[in-house]
């Protein structure tokens, strides 16, 4: 079985240098990284292979989640690679708070390429040392990222709206 992975790519109207700064300067990173409606706080930022990035995300309901990344490759301005995972408040690696089957760690590879119109960012997420069960779970979630579940959820929304 090929290890499943998730890829997202987009072209941004900005130079590679500005994009690199936005990804690697803690203050700039905190300004945009994270799900909408959450507030990101960078707790630790050591940008070199083996260095650790830690952050906290505060959801609107007051709950907080902690992440820890360990950089593997730092090649300005073209490539970043890190091990991505959840952590407790002290930075110890933990499983995803609500889904023990989500892979413990994901390798994140980000490339920045100069193209017409700006810079193309390509990001890949691939589970590290995951069990077949975790890979299946990740695969299923990736399908949901790619819209596989959207239809079902839209119908659920309609249903729930009707029954409220």
């Amino acid at each position, binding site marked *: 079985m090929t290890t499943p992975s998730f890829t*997202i790519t*987009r072209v*941004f*109207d*900005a130079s590679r*240098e*500005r*994009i690199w*700064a*936005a990804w690697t300067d803690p203050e*700039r990173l905190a*300004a*945009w*990284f*994270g*799900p*909408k409606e*959450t507030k990101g706080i960078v707790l630790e930022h050591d940008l070199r292979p083996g260095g650790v990035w830690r952050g906290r995300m505060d*959801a609107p309901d007051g709950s907080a989640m902690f992440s820890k990344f360990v950089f593997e490759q730092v090649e300005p301005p073209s490539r970043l690679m890190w091990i991505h995972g959840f952590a407790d408040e002290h930075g110890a690696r933990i499983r*995803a708070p*609500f*889904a*023990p*089957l*989500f892979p413990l760690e994901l390798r994140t590879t980000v490339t920045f390429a100069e193209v017409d119109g700006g810079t193309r*960012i390509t*990001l890949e*997420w691939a589970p590290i040392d995951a069990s077949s069960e975790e890979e*299946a*779970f990740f695969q*299923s*979630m990736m399908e*949901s*990222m790619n819209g*596989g*579940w959207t*239809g*079902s*959820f839209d*119908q*659920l929304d*309609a*249903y*729930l709206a009707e*029954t*409220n």
Partner: protein
Amino acid sequence: MEPLLDRQFAALADPTRRAILARLARGEATVGELQRPFGISQPAISRHLKVLESAGLIEGGKAAQARPRRLKADALDDARGWIDGLRTLWSDSFDQLDAFLKATEGKTE
């Protein structure tokens, strides 16, 4: 027993079960009514329904095959909130990065 969210994700990982949920989202249905469009055996449908029930996603009789199954109204709230957070992490971040780059354009770097 595994936590409810685990059971929900395991239940949702199967395309047939997601299709059954989508069908039930349009209205309740009996095992027989579910079986026809999916073209799989009645025991197979019953097994899927059992998984969905155990995950708290649908409700209906355990013994009576004819009793219609229906979606539970608040079934997916927790699982869904969590999925959405991860599902949209990078798309949200990319949107916000785009806005950030536009807002800081021309300023001293």
